[in-house]
């Protein structure tokens, strides 16, 4: 398969069904995990599950898994941007903790 040529794939319904079931299981896990008190790890657990769910949607439902390299690049750009954007938090979290500023 040439990664530079977009091929016309018709994927089996069973694959989509598996992804859908995985998403529903992840939804149940998100709700259950929120019922426990892991302290600061609640946020981390919720985000790991959400990122996994979003990855499944992007790869299989949005068909990036079988996309060309150019599609991979564009799909990745948005998430790279989110990463850069959230570096802003480094400012808020370290305020008042750096002596001498």
């Amino acid at each position, binding site marked *: 398969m040439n990664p530079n040529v*977009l091929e016309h794939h*018709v994927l089996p319904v069973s694959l989509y069904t598996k*992804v859908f079931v995985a998403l529903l299981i992840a939804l149940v896990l998100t709700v259950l995990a*929120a019922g426990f*008190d892991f302290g600061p790890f609640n946020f981390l657990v919720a985000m790991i599950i959400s990122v996994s769910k979003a990855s499944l949607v992007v790869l299989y*439902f949005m068909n990036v898994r079988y996309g060309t390299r150019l599609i991979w690049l564009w799909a990745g750009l948005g998430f790279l941007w989110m990463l850069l954007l959230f570096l802003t938090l480094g400012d808020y*979290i370290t305020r008042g903790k750096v002596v001498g500023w």
Partner: protein
Amino acid sequence: MSVEAAHGAHGMEPHLGIQYETIEQQNESYIVGMWAFLVTEIMFFGALFLGLAVYRYLYPEAFTAAHHQLSKPLGTLNTFILLTSSYTMVLAVRSIQLGNRRALIGFLLLTILCAGGFVVVKTFEYGAKIEHHLVPGPTFRWPPHEAGAVEAGAPSEGAGATAEAEHHAADAAVNPGQAQMFFVFYFCMTGLHAIHVIIGAIIMIILVILALRDHPAVRDYIPIEMAGLYWHFVDIVWIFLFPLLYLIGH
């Protein structure tokens, strides 16, 4: 590719634009164009997510107290509805890839039904927030319950009543302005998301009308695929909104 070969491809593919060599290249351009649009969407939703993160970090107690006012069951129901709609959307794309127009229309209608269900649930949630004076602005009221409501009600025995009293005490200890800030984010983010859901539904209604008329634009899978990309993006935004607004914090 040689000029002759390019002409050959254009002869076989009547929908191939003259700027493209092959139909695959044209399809890739459409999909990349849609992704470029989605990146701009990520950029502006991203700013709101960052704002939410900063204020959550600054006012953790107020945001935890305020988020208890949202309905977890309704939020879970809406997540389920949106995940289901993504599943039916992807099956709609698959149907047209196989040239099955009836299945395409059926799956698109199911997706529109889910979009409608989502908006109806959201309307009930917003209605409850308006009723409880939780909309930011001059009518905002915090704490959300009358002082001493637990004592005034039925005999408050048992663990449930104690937990409720603790919640009430925690709510009363919170700065109303900070609690209001949570609802500013709640309404901005879910409101903007709901607008996207409504736009998605309108796009799908147009596709259904075109498909019913067997319009040439929807004989190919690419227009449905692009509507699907938009729809799945809306789903992804909700996948993050749901835990961040409804679930996180105790």
